[in-house]
């Protein structure tokens, strides 16, 4: 379970302070499927980075499973990211010199999993992602949809509780975009909490809960049968 309390994130640009997140309150239950929409610069990515422990708040508190995260050391945050959080980015962020297989395998290496177990796990996952015949290819030899599937594979190989996707279909044609969304939703059906930032109304409408952001605030929190205007 995730809880943000009066959370702020300010950036100093020149002598101007930008409130990328402005006193945000938000509670997310385990297993929820949320989409985050809103104009460019409204703070969607900043929110995702915050939830993913990639960034620290300027003020306010972020509780992860009732644990206060501000007191965690960088080392502990890294371990939490590794074991509990998966990221999917618009621009994939694959390591160009590693093969698809090695990219998917990477978190297991970081976690110190034995090669034998790694191999079995990666094989199984590549099959599920329909990437078995692409395993030995470098990212540059893959299509956009395939790259994003590799990135998703890397994000879920550690079986995280929370999957954060920042415009995962932004660089994809509509067919591969839909495939990627279907894959993410399948994972959510398996119990993972899923947050998807998107510009696409149709994609956003697939979520059970839809956040809309403007100027660092959530101005709409929609759930089936209940709309909150803040």
């Amino acid at each position, binding site marked *: 379970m995730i809880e943000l309390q009066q959370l702020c994130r300010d950036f100093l640009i020149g002598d101007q302070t930008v409130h990328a997140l402005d006193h945000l309150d938000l509670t997310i239950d385990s297993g929820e499927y949320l989409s985050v929409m809103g104009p460019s610069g409204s703070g969607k990515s900043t929110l995702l980075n915050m939830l993913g422990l990639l960034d620290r708040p300027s003020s306010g508190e972020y509780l992860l499973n009732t644990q206060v995260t501000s007191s965690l050391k960088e080392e502990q945050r890294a371990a939490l990211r590794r074991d509990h959080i998966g990221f999917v980015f618009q621009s994939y962020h694959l390591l160009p010199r590693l093969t698809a297989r090695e990219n998917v395998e990477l978190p297991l290496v970081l976690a*110190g999993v034995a090669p034998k177990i790694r191999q079995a796990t990666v094989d199984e996952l590549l099959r599920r992602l329909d990437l078995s015949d692409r395993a030995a290819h470098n990212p540059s030899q893959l299509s956009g949809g395939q790259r994003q599937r590799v990135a998703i594979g890397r994000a879920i190989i550690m079986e995280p509780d929370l999957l954060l996707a920042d415009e995962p279909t932004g660089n994809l044609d509509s067919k591969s975009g839909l495939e990627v969304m279907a894959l993410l939703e399948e994972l959510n059906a398996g119990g993972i909490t899923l947050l998807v930032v998107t510009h696409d109304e149709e994609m956003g409408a697939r979520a059970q809960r839809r956040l809309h952001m403007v100027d660092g605030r959530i101005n709409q929190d929609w759930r089936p049968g209940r709309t909150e205007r803040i």
Partner: protein
Amino acid sequence: MAVLTRIGGPVGPKEYEQALMRVYDLLAFNFRVITRQRVRSIMLLIAIAIGVLAINLLTGIGEGGKQFVLGEFNLLGKNVLIMLPGKKETTGGIPPLTGETTRDLTLQDAQAILRLAEVSAVAPLIPGKIEISHGRLSREAFTLGSNRAFFEMRQLDIAQGSILPDVPMDQAVAVCIIGSKLRRELFGNRPALGQWLRAGDSRFRVVGILKDRGQGLGLDMNDVIIIPVASAQSLFNTEGLFRIFIELRNLHDLDKSRDRITDLLKNRHDGEEDVTLIAQDSLLTAFADILDTMTLTVAGIAAISMLVAGILIMNVSLIAVSQRTREIGLLKALGLPARTVRIIFLSEAAMMATAGAIIGLLISELALFLARRVYPAVLFDTPNWAQVGSFIVAIVTALVFSAIPARRAANMAPVDALLDKKADQA
């Protein structure tokens, strides 16, 4: 080991094993990344290789020179003078090492010196390196062509058999005396006396084995083969003598004896003073000079080349850090702790340094091997301390100079790194 346990955090046996695995795998992963980054890796390799090459080559040459000079006076008695071809104009300086000879010293010169009243013995010397073989075993050995008197002057004792036969210097005899180490390596436990050795195109019968003598300052006498000087002349296809050792009956009239010998040679060489005659004490002084200069030069050049390598490593690594900003950000986002990022960069530097050092070492060995071919008289050989030392210095340099880049990489905030706009999409 301490490092490994720290990465894993708390330590049970399982955690320890995991930590070990993680480091091992990260290195393996990293190795793949390095080998797929050609230009950068090659630059680093070259920088390190040059540094190591410099150290090994310079000390190898220095050591060759040192052994060469030491070999001159090592164990020589005070009443022994050394004659070498070529005239050194200034006195008290460094005697010529290779001898830019105007005229060869010949066996006839040596025989003429021996006829002088104040001279009790003369030992000519032609050194060289040549392939020695017996049966299927073969190795390169330092070969000395000389005579019977040489053994006494150099205080070489015989463990088995006899020294060179008492024959005129210009008479070639197919016999040899070998050092104990050479004997072991060619014959093992089988008897060597009376056996035939092949040296180049000639064959020699082993008539004596030198008594074991620890590695002295000069040449390792356990590892030599001694043959009659006339045989060495034909073996190495040379007329000229490298040195003539002259033993005086007494030391009373040293200066007068020197003059007599010099005059004799001048007469024999059409009135030209084209040989150098030195006594042990002047050699010692000259040797000290050489050694000091050499040590300083070696240390200086090696230090500079390593410094250059280090700075190159630092720059290249800094470039690498900024090129790999997104990569590092991603790894951190995936949960790689800062200190592991540091270890990755340091281990990469260490790996490159090791590979570069090996390359440098191989090139220097090859160069010295060729040098020995060209100047067989000088035993160019890198001392072990320099080989080990250059390795350590290379790795330490690489680690020290990649510390700053590694630190920068480790301290990068994951989100900033991921947002790096410069990098293109992958």
